[in-house]
């Protein structure tokens, strides 16, 4: 399946994904939905641990961001944004502490989908059950994208990881708010297109800086994409062409910008100093 075929489906995109994955047999469908609910609950427990912990990561670079933001004044009076950002960072700080998380699609980008989907769900006071089918769609979008491009930062740069997670999250939020397959695929496409070119340059090679804050930014990015698509806005470049463009940029990136910790902000004087200190 490609993204165009998914977009052409008349109805919710998650229905087509579920059909492709397990067919129409009831027991198999229920089994898969139960597994998705379990993953959702795992995501929720990573969020809960992350929001309440300020234990530093192994390097000491992160560990308190989610809790600090969660407890801070909401000066913008934008509770949805604050929630989405805090949830996303909570997951990635758990990840940086070697806590338990759900990869979505990777561990470094694991905060984006729960940040956006559970963040919006909680903001609107929806039940976890309402989030399950959107999560199925997120998984399906990730699967379709991964057939056409690398999703590892070491292969395609950060655009491959956070771009995929933002696309998955955008589609999920779009469906959660009533968007059918066409709108959800547009949301995913807008999210991916606006992530193109992002490099993977983690300081010292640790999945901490910029990874933790990046998940906060791209969880909000995903919600933005869903908002545009729900209003009927569309990408001029078709979805599958955007995926191909992302893949081709990934191939053009030099190794320094693909998760080696040798380029970008990792190669700044401070980045190098931190790396040296950690190597000792």
């Amino acid at each position, binding site marked *: 399946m490609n993204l165009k075929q998914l977009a052409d489906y008349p109805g919710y995109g998650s229905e087509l*994904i579920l059909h492709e*994955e397990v067919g129409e047999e009831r027991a198999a469908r229920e089994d898969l939905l139960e597994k998705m609910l379990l993953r959702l609950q795992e995501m929720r427990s990573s969020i809960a641990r992350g929001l309440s912990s300020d234990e530093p990561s192994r390097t000491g670079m992160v560990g308190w961001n989610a809790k600090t933001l969660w407890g801070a004044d909401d000066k913008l009076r934008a509770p949805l944004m604050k929630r989405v950002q805090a949830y996303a960072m909570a997951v990635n700080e758990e990840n940086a502490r070697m806590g338990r998380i*759900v990869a979505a699609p990777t561990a470094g980008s694991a905060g984006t989908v729960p940040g956006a989907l559970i963040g919006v769900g909680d903001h609107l006071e929806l039940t976890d059950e309402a989030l399950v089918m959107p999560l199925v769609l997120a998984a399906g979008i990730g699967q379709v994208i991964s057939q056409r491009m690398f999703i590892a930062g070491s292969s395609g740069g950060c655009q*491959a990881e956070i771009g995929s997670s933002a696309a998955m999250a955008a589609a999920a939020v779009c469906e959660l708010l009533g968007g059918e397959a066409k709108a959800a695929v547009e949301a995913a496409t807008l999210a991916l297109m606006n992530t193109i070119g992002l490099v993977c340059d983690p300081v010292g090679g640790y999945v901490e800086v910029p990874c933790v804050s990046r998940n906060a930014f791209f969880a909000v990015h995903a919600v933005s994409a869903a908002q545009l698509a729900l209003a009927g806005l569309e990408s001029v470049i078709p979805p599958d062409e955007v995926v191909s463009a992302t893949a081709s940029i990934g191939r053009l990136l030099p190794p320094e910008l693909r*998760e080696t*910790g040798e380029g970008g902000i990792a190669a700044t004087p401070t980045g190098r100093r931190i790396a040296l200190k950690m190597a000792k």
Partner: protein
Amino acid sequence: MIGPIMIGPSSSHTAGACRLALLARHTLQRPAERAKLTLHGSFAKTAKGHGTELALTAGILGYYPHDPRIPQALSIAKKQQLDIVFDAADLGDVHPNTVCIELENRTEKSHLTGSSLGGGSIQVFEIDAFEVRFSGRYHTLLLRHVDQTGVIAHVAQVIADNEGNIATLYSARQKKGGEAMMSIEIDKRLSQYVLDYLTHLPYIRWLRILPEVISGEGHLSGTGDVA
């Protein structure tokens, strides 16, 4: 692409690494006492930052990627007197996240090379200098055998007779008439009876059954093709 449920911080450098080592662990019949791990590319460059050494050690200890003991794997290994050495080398034109795992105990030795492709997906492409291809998504039957006519057909027939459905099969030999290895991914585990039967065939030198290390929950749970 939602999943695996795992200990952080990296699906490729932690979960994938753990799975590769877990497969390596099962190429021996008894636990390893010594291990040498040679890391290539991004694995070599960022191993410390991603907990790759902990994850590889955890895999050799038999832990799965969601095991909360992973952060303590190195100290547990020390307690169990498992001697582990890490090294870095250029393994050639392979995926950036590639590792070569050499294990040893008093009676056995094994050599495995594989790559972590992202999202926790893996591929093993070398065992004991034989070319293989498998993903850890299914039970994998490894057969080292004499290269002669009809071996593949016979093994496939035995598997079929026992209602095993082959997902993938890869076979390569070192030289004509020499030794060869087959890696066969099968939907469900073969019974001990069938394994014993295969083991005693005259042309079979060695047989191993490696477990499914990627929880069999279909493509949506982080087991898709990401290469």
